[in-house]
């Protein structure tokens, strides 16, 4: 077992643990917005670590090119996809835990009423800074 194989195994287990933290967040967080945060942070880094560790176990020149493409494409696109889901979550007025005020009400087109205003509308404070 040479050094590159050991580094690859450690990197793969690290990426799998990042995935485990994301799955723990999806299970335990009380709110869809917090789950979006967990998935968007860990999904990008987890795939990159796992593919880099897999490259260390099968090293060759074409694999280096493919893994570089995978890392660039995945880091550029996964966060965009997750944030599209987060924006759709806000537009569909998903209920929010510990709702205090809605900073996005004026910034997002198509959602004039605040999220969850039917459940805690009395505590809804609209801050206008201009």
């Amino acid at each position, binding site marked *: 077992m040479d050094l590159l194989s050991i580094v*690859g*195994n*450690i990197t*793969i*287990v690290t*990426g*799998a*643990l990042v*995935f*485990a933290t*994301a*799955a*723990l967040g*999806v*299970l335990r967080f009380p709110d*869809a917005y917090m*789950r*979006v945060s967990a*998935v968007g942070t860990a*999904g990008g880094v*987890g*795939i990159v670590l*796992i*593919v880099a*560790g*897999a*490259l260390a*176990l*099968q090293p060759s020149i074409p*694999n280096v090119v*493919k*893994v570089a*493409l*995978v890392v660039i*494409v*995945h880091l550029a*696109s*996964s966060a*965009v*996809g*997750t944030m*599209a*889901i987060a*924006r*759709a*979550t806000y*537009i*569909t007025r*998903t*209920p929010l835990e510990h709702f205090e005020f809605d900073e996005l009400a004026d910034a997002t087109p*198509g959602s004039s009423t605040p999220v969850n205003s039917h459940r805690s509308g009395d505590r809804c404070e609209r801050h206008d800074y201009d």
Partner: protein
Amino acid sequence: MIGVDVGIVIIGLACLASAYRVLRGPTQADRAVAGDLLLFGFVGLIALFGIRAANEYTFDIVLVAALVGFLSALSLARALTRGKR
């Protein structure tokens, strides 16, 4: 190759957790988010099973999955808002 086996087990458990959230999620947004994590887990499982089987086309499949998974997240977002932008 013990790290590959440990990684397969951990990512399999993560996929089970996100499948539970897809089944039980109280809102549709929870199901969409858990489906996104399930896709990422399957890409990782493809990479690890390909390494374990010593297949030479592993990284081609992972590259295609990384390109197409972006479209799946966008279409989940569009389906969540029923086509409204």
